[in-house]
Structures are given as structure tokens and as C-alpha cells.
């Protein structure tokens, strides 16, 4: 698949939140980091995690015939390094600190691990894996921003009591996911070619 195809596929057809269910209900306002630092943190953490995962798996473990150990070695070797990097960034000032704080929360979770596992096990080359992970981060951010807007509107709506808060947000996530059901690998291939 071309790079444009990989971006479209990873951001929409294989959206990390709406199709794969990685991460959790986003709470950007609660974390106070803001949307732009969240986007940058998402893309950086995904790219860093996926690159390290890809390298550990394909350059070290596959030649040894131990590819199934990928997650374990990643947790031991890469996560402490990524955590340290984010903590150094969060100790900085201003915008960098906000990226660091947002990134620190993202390092250990189903989103960063899931994207890293997916792109490393999909047979992508390193640059393709990098592009796919960045696009996944962007796709997740986009879905989160849409949901955040929906949350704003729902707060002003007369939602039945049992549905207030999380339930209506989960149902809304499902409705947004429905919009992406028509976009699959075949659609992307037909759109941008092989």
C-alpha cells in the first residue's frame, strides 16, 4: 500500500479508538493539557513506541526465532526509556512540559501498546510502521475531539438520568463508529490504488 493509503487506513479504516477500541473515554479537559499538546503527545508516544517495538521485534527477536516475546522485551527495555523521556519533558517549561505530562500518561496503556503491536505485526517496513503509528495517533485524536464536542452539546441536552455521563458517551462513540463502518481496507485500496 502507498504511504497515502497507509495514512488513510490507519487513521480511518483501522481507527485506534472507534474500530480497535484502544484507549478509553478521552478526558482532555480533565487532564488540562489542551488539545494541541495531546495531539503532539499522542503522535510522539505512538511513533516512539511503535519504532522501538518494531526494532525489538524485527531486528532482534525475529532472527532469534523469539518473536512471541516481543511485548515482554518491549516492556522491559523500551517502556522505562520512554517514561524517562516523558518525565524529562514534563520537567521542562511551558508547552514542552504540557506535552511531557500528556505523554507520560499515554506511555503505558492499550493505545500505545495496541498501536505498537498492530503496526509491528502487520508486516510493515520501518518507515511504513512509523507513518502508520503517527496516523493512528492522529485518528485517535480526531475521534476524541469529535467526542469532546458531543460531550459539550450533551451537557446542555435533556438526557435521561441513567444515560447521563459515561453511558451516553459510550453510545455516542458507537454512533460515530458507525460512520466509519463503510471505510475498510478494500475501500482505501480502491481509493488510492495498491
Amino acid at each position, binding site marked *: 500500500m502507498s504511504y497515502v493509503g497507509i495514512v488513510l487506513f490507519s487513521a480511518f479504516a483501522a481507527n485506534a479508538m472507534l474500530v480497535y477500541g484502544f484507549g478509553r473515554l478521552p478526558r482532555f479537559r480533565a487532564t488540562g493539557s489542551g488539545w494541541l499538546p495531546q495531539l503532539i503527545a499522542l503522535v510522539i508516544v505512538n511513533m516512539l513506541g511503535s519504532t522501538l517495538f518494531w526494532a525489538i521485534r524485527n531486528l532482534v527477536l525475529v532472527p532469534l526465532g*523469539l518473536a512471541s516475546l516481543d511485548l515482554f522485551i518491549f516492556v522491559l527495555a523500551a517502556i522505562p526509556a520512554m517514561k524517562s523521556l516523558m518525565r524529562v519533558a514534563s520537567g521542562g517549561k511551558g508547552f514542552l512540559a504540557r506535552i511531557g505530562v500528556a505523554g507520560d500518561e499515554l506511555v503505558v496503556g492499550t493505545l500505545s501498546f495496541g498501536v505498537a503491536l498492530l503496526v509491528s505485526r502487520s508486516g510493515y517496513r520501518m518507515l511504513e510502521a512509523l507513518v502508520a503509528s503517527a496516523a493512528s495517533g492522529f485518528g485517535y485524536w480526531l475521534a476524541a475531539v469529535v467526542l469532546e464536542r458531543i460531550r459539550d452539546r450533551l451537557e446542555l441536552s435533556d438526557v435521561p438520568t441513567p444515560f447521563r455521563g459515561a453511558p451516553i458517551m459510550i453510545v455516542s462513540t458507537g454512533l460515530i463508529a458507525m460512520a466509519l463502518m463503510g471505510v475498510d481496507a*478494500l475501500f482505501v485500496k480502491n481509493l488510492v490504488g495498491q
Partner: protein
Amino acid sequence: MAARKVSLVENLAAAAIMGFLSLLLVTAILLTESAASSRERVLIADLAGRSVTAKPSAIDDPACSRVFPLPGKNGDEFGAVIYMRSRSGTGRAAALFAGSGQLEAIRLVDGDSARLDFDQGDWFSSFLGKGADDAYPRQAASARDPAAVSGASESFAETAGILERMSLLIRTLGKERG
């Protein structure tokens, strides 16, 4: 100095725990691999109609982990169990390739029965005889029986992609074996 010693002992203890876990995992992986390999050998032997005795070649593909060579009088054949996964479901098939990469036989072993996409009709036959110089069909419309493939399905394209990769890989393996 004493604090350093304590820290060193703690680090060593942590390393020992992780080392033990690594050993446990490696043992589990080796056992699983061996069992999975034996099962795949049986499935391929069943499809090929003869016993598979040669050692498999390990490959790193999302759809397949090993290829079994089947030496024969008319040149080598290769057998593999492939895993197909799409939004429409999951399926496992045993496939037999000629050394040129051409698909000679394929049989669905089992599938994610909740999603019947891989199970409907005999649409695997659309791929038979393809490979080598004759590429796999890219669109369901060009297949023998498009209706059986439920239109232009993602699973059809996914299977075509997997078989194409396998075909290329087997051509390389075939050349390596002379």
C-alpha cells in the same frame, strides 16, 4: 556505600525475577511452537495425501509462521497453514503450493464460525492455479463465482494478498532449495 550495595542487590533481585520470567516464557513458546508445528504437519499431510517429514522453514509473516517442504519426483512442493483475518471474520486454511509459487490445493480447516464469510461457498477455488506468473485475482468480481464471495469483500482481498505473499516467498524458497 551501604546504600549503593542495597541498591545493587535490589537491582539484581529484579533482574533475576525478570530472567526467570523470560525463561518461563521461552519454554512456553518453544512448547507451543512444537505442538502447533505438529498439528500443522498433520493438516498439510491430510491435504497433500502423503506424510510430511521434512523440517519446516520458519517465516515471519502475519498470516503464517512456517512452511513445510514436500520433496517429490516432479520437484518440491510446499505446504503451509495460513490464517486469514479481516473485519468479516477469521479462517484457517491448509494450502499446497508448487515450487513455482502456484497454488495447487487449498482447504478451509476451520473458521470463526460466528462470521461465516470464509465458510460460504467454495470460493477458495477462485485462487487455484494462480500464483507464479499468473497473479491472484484482485477483485472479487474477477473471481469464478463472485456471489459466493459476497461481493467485493475485504476477506477476498485479504486472502488474495496473503496468497500472493506466500507465493512469492515459496518461489524464493524453491529457488534456494534448487
